């Protein structure tokens, strides 16, 4: 077989690239100082500034990776016997509630525990809340104008045929946002399941798609691929801040809100550092920083004031907490019923 003289050049090039990549990687392995490890359910652009502030305040570095709530929980359960991280940071409290059954948390009552309202803490300290996150309606202004509509101000408004195939909201199989939404509807109908499901089935006809994540529909609504949807306020305001032309509104009948929680993992290798992170996160020390970093969560700690522009959005809105005990006891049954009757609606 004839051999070309050019042979060594590409070989050497590939070897050089590989060697370079390895040399570049080497410094990662050298790390010093105190470090606590966390899985964050909060998106990186909110978690990172918080953890940097924590390091500034305490000298403790937070090593973290971000997962959606379902993925984070699946990992923590799989790693139960040999936990790789110390803290599960953020995520709607129902994720943590599901984790309690798996026995993955180490109860811890941080310094703010006594001050927190009952709905912002687990009685045994399995988790504590670090923020509150109400649901809102978000709609695309251009769509509203073209369809000659006002921003929806009632749950009934979403049944308008003008919205046919133009609503996006989260799938209750994967998203805490969706579960909070369904329990909001149940509350609006006085927990009369027949009427509540009747409403949801009617609304189903206007739904283009149920998205995997709670915020999955915000971009489509921002872009006008969908006309409106139901999201957590933190996602909705973020969409608006990114420059998309959207309106945020609340239904006059009221809408639910969900707590965001933090928890210590059983068998955590840096348990003491993890407790310090929980102390800090559940206190005003962290929650006063939301405004500075433009994170539109409502603080859970009663001593922290709501940032004025956020308070302005919330003004006049009727928001009610979801009853933990009721939601916990009925979650699986309601979600199953939703899958069978609403998601897989037969017509």
């Amino acid at each position: 077989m004839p051999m070309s003289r050019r042979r060594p050049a590409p070989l050497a090039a590939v070897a050089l690239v590989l060697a370079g990549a390895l040399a570049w990687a080497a410094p990662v392995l050298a790390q010093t100082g105190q470090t606590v490890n966390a899985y964050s359910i909060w998106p990186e652009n909110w978690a990172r500034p918080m953890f940097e502030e924590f390091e500034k305040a305490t000298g403790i570095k937070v090593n973290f990776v971000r997962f959606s709530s379902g993925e984070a929980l699946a990992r923590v359960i799989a790693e139960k016997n040999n936990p790789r991280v110390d803290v599960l940071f953020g995520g709607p409290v129902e994720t943590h509630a599901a984790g309690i059954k798996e026995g993955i948390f180490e109860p811890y009552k941080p310094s703010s525990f006594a001050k927190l309202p009952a709905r912002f803490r687990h009685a045994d300290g399995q988790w504590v809340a670090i923020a509150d996150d109400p649901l809102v309606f978000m709609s695309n202004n251009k769509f509203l104008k073209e369809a000659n509509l006002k921003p929806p101000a009632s749950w009934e408004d979403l049944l308008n045929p003008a919205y046919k195939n133009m609503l996006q909201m989260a799938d209750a199989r994967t998203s805490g946002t969706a579960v909070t939404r369904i329990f909001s509807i149940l509350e609006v109908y006085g927990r009369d399941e027949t009427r509540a499901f009747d409403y949801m089935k009617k609304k189903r006809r206007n739904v283009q798609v149920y998205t995997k994540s709670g915020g999955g529909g915000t971009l489509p609504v921002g872009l006008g691929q969908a006309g409106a949807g139901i999201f957590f306020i933190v996602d909705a305001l973020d969409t608006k801040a990114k420059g998309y032309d959207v309106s945020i509104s609340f239904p006059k009948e009221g809408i639910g809100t969900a707590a965001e929680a933090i928890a210590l993992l059983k068998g955590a290798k840096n348990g003491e550092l993890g407790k310090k992170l929980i102390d800090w996160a559940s206190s005003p020390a962290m929650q006063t920083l939301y405004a500075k970093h433009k994170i539109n969560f409502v603080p859970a700690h009663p001593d922290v004031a709501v940032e004025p522009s956020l308070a302005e959005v919330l003004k006049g809105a009727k928001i009610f907490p979801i009853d933990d005990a009721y939601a916990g006891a009925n979650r699986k049954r309601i979600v199953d019923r939703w899958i069978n009757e609403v998601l897989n609606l037969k017509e």
Partner: protein
Amino acid sequence: MARPAGARASGASRDPALWVTVAVLWALLALFVLYPLLCLLARVAMDGERLSPGAALAVLGDPNQLRALGNSLLLAALVGVAGTALGFLFALTASRAGFGRGWLAVLDAVTLLPLISPPFTTAIAMIFSFGPRGLITYHVLGLKGVTVYGLASTFFSETVTYFPIAYLTLRPVLAAIDANVEDMALSLGASRFQVFRSVTLPLAIPGLANAFLLLFAASLADFATPLILAGNSFPVLPTQAYLQITGLFDLRGGAVLSFALLVPAFAVFLLQRYWVSRRYYVTVTGKAGARTAVKTVAPWLRPVLLALCLAVAAVIAYFYALLFYASVVVALGANHAWTWRHYHVIFTEGAKAIRDTLVIAGLSMPLGGLYGVVVGYLIARKRFMGRQAMEIVSMLNYALPGTIVGIAYLIAFNDPPLALTGGALLIVACYVFRYSPTGIRATVAQLQQIDPALEEASLGLGASTAMTFRRVTLPLITPAFFAGLGVVFIRSMTAISATIFLVSINWTLITVRILENMTELSLGPAAAFSVLVVAIVYVVIAAIGRLLRALRAPDAVSLGGILGG
């Protein structure tokens, strides 16, 4: 005539090198394929200490899940057929239509794009283009109330994404069919169509079957595309399994759904094996005949073939232009001011992910290439106990949906003595054992075209198996080696479904960052990361292409060819 390729090869007992290789491979397969799956099975079937598969099996009785299984099969079959047809069209154009290098370079470059892209890119471009406010459906065609979610768009997106696999599988097969054979048929008075139907097509059948199998399996296991495009009216099993695990926190139910996918995956696999193995083709005799000009494709047909290929290429080019555009504007759809900001973000905040991904891909590439060729060679040429079992086991991690492989690895390798989670090694192992089957199959397909007599001659003259492999077989399967190596590198740069469970606080991956960016609505950085991945893979693949050209006769191989030979 109809004898399996290995029938005349030597047995293991007389050859220590073969015996050691087989033992090492089995140890690796046991550790990285069988053991994790058994751990997962145990987790599914056991309730504490008790055996109770009933609860898990109940998931299968659910009519919605049965519908999802049906949908999965339908989608995989459609993608398999359409993708193979499209791949054959491209391969035929490339190897038989007699076009110059310039045109072929364009086709190769464009068909590479879907192969070397991170997940979601086609799906996102589909939504931007064909949704209710899509660039094409609304702004160009003025349609209203169009829905992009469902079978049609998922099928379209997967076909565009996966057909290059068929192209790269079929191209070397067609190229290896000696044009002299077709020439002879022509000169004996057959029409061009007769030659095509009775010479070219039958000789390509192992390749076609191979391509169909690869596409069927790829579609069956794909969860990223349906996750975005299938919507709620067309549930498929991998997405259902993923949702079952990550959404309902039901690891068992998810695992059962994934195991249900194994049944169709292996039905097709076995069908292909027995169907193909009854046909035995040798056109490479070792006696290189004089090269003849290819005459099989009629002159009038050539521009038609080229036009069809270019139309497909244009669609792909449009998708990627859109992706690039999204990476250089502030916010696609809202603010189209020009900016390099997103690239700044990925090279600062994303630098660690880029570095980690390159290291892992750089390690996986040579290991995966080697593993693929060795296994493929043993399967195609050697006879030893458990040869068929090895073939099946080596396909397992490829056939299983990534979610399940990821979860199985997580369960199996989290606790001592095999506490490998959190490290790069586990991600590398996952890539090698999950993505080398392309290399294995490429090796097998290549060897099926080469007469074992060449090797027998070497053995008969007293060379050992190792020597024969190195001096005779290796040069013949070098293209397959590079195909395997290239595919492992590409997958290492672009895969997500399994490794999303294996990334850790120490090692993260670009694709996981892309998904993360998308959930944060940061389309810009997601697009910038995707463009970067495409660029890196292009450069590496081009380097390998040059290397291969240097190793072979200069006219034989171009950029795309290295993936198939």
